[in-house]
């Protein structure tokens, strides 16, 4: 088939490739170039609210690059700590997702094939329910007079309600809750392909289950672990909805900072510079994701 496709007239093949590629270049790659460009512009009170980088003066082209936005971001400790705390939020949440998700994916992969589809469907279902709605659900649970506090007081475990909503704890709960299905699905896809005879052989030779898990299952599932972790970590770094709805005034996340620069301060050039630095931080995880994705698909 591949050979036949290659023997096709190059034009036919090229057109098929070009249809989706053109769309993605136009609506995904070029926009990034524009963000890069506008991150060097200056704010001005006009529509659109930024200056042109190029200017014709006396029939000569002048390009003016303004590094001010980047200097501003690097000098203001608010931004550096927002980047750092976003990475911390994402790292800890990814680890927690792995801790909860791995045993679940393993159990589903090892379960009876008849109920496996139902178990898997129950993992997929929440991810098809609106993200915003699922995060909203936690507000009613975590509030000071919310269900969790009422339940704990009713049990007699606490006397005063715990302050959970509008704290970093709530943000962790939200990220783990929101992204857990994206951890489980690639792990399951990987684990379900494992050959049980390897484990049987190890078992027959007297290897204890925990050791065969550590020396056989875990290394074999490495690609799934990486894929799952990247699917959680990368979007979590730029998360906006969760810190906005569940976080407090001291919750610093860069996705929220970008949103505020854009919508509240209407400072498009600074918002662009925030996005470019975020992309630089995510460049390595993105490269890892694309490397492993060739082997591991959703």
């Amino acid at each position, binding site marked *: *088939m*591949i050979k*036949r*496709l290659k023997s096709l007239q190059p034009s*036919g093949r090229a057109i*098929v*490739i070009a*249809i*989706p*590629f053109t*769309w*993605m*270049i136009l*609506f*995904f790659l070029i*926009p990034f170039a*524009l963000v890069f460009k*506008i991150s060097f512009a200056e704010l001005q009170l006009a529509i659109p609210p930024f200056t042109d980088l190029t200017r014709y003066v006396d029939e000569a082209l002048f390009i003016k690059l303004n590094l001010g936005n980047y200097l501003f971001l690097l000098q203001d400790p608010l931004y550096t700590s927002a980047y750092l705390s976003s990475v911390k939020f994402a790292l800890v949440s990814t680890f927690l997702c792995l801790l*909860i*998700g791995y*045993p679940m994916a393993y*159990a*589903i992969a090892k379960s009876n094939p008849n109920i496996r589809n*139902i*178990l898997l*469907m*129950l993992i*997929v*279902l929440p991810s*098809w*329910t*609106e*993200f*915003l709605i*699922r995060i*909203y*659900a936690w*507000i*009613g649970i975590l509030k000071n007079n*919310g*269900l969790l506090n*009422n339940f704990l007081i009713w049990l007699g475990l606490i006397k005063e309600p715990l302050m959970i909503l509008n704290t970093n704890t709530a943000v962790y709960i939200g990220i783990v*809750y929101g992204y*857990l299905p994206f951890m489980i699905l690639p792990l399951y896809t990987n684990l379900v392909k494992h050959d049980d005879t390897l*484990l049987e052989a190890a078992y027959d030779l007297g290897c204890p289950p925990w050791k065969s898990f550590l020396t056989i299952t875990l290394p074999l599932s490495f690609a799934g672990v990486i894929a799952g972790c*990247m699917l959680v970590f990368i*979007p979590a770094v730029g*998360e*906006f*909805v969760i810190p*906005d*709805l569940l976080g407090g005034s001291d919750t610093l996340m860069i*996705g929220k900072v970008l949103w505020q620069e854009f*919508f509240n301060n209407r400072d498009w050039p600074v918002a*662009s510079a925030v996005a470019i630095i975020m992309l630089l931080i*995510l460049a390595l995880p*993105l490269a890892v994701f*694309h490397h492993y994705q060739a082997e591991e*698909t*959703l």
Partner: protein
Amino acid sequence: MNKSLSRRLIFFLSFGYAFLYIPIFILVIYSFNESRLVTVWGGFSTKWYGELLKDQGILDAAWMSVRIAFFTAWAATFLGTVAGFVMARFGRFRFHSGFASTITAPLVMPEVITGLSLLLLFVSMERVLGWPEGRGMLTIWLSHVTFATAFVAVIVSSRLREMDISIEEAAMDLGAPPLKVFFVITIPIIIPALISGWLLSFTLSMDDLVITSFVAGPSSTTLPMKVFSSVRMGVSPKINAVATFIVMFATVIVVGSSIFAIRQDKKKYREMQAAIQENLGQ
């Protein structure tokens, strides 16, 4: 190896499913709460559904979302299927890895970045080309198609990789032109993937808040934008009623397409068994 799960794993699974589902159940239950307070039970009532049906703002936003999602689903399924086919069947071409990375990058890209970059594109295009004029349904649709295409491409290409390539090869060897093979052989086999790709695109488009907020115009408020602005004002049972509709919608789609997929698998299995029987009989 014992086939039954160990107790510890069953415990873990139950814990995990409880974590995933309890918030959703609470959300649905409290949509039937008489009281305005979301956390205090004041008796069973459907009054919030009545209030919801009277709220013209929410209904208009929902209608806007449904229209955008419908058109997004068709375009993303088309583009995503072509892209998935290229990824799974075209082997190595010059920009092969660049192609795959570009198509699938929207899967993980933080939405604030995608949203900002698309907005800057539309603003620049309007200045240079005069199109698209202003921002609204068209710009939202273009943005939704872009990220939904990535999901469809992944679904379609993984389905194509599982599929037995020899059937397509046989048709080619018998002289069928590639385009005919694609429509007569490939498409019918991967139709379940196309259906789930369509449904997923529709849902993704219905659900998107962040990217939509960047590229929407003043007159184009979608349902998630409406929900978000009222959630920011505080919790309200009316939002729980909206949430219940969304949960029901997702449940019907996911359960329906799972049943469809299981039936397809069983049908395929029976046909294979029948074919083997037939061959053995000869």
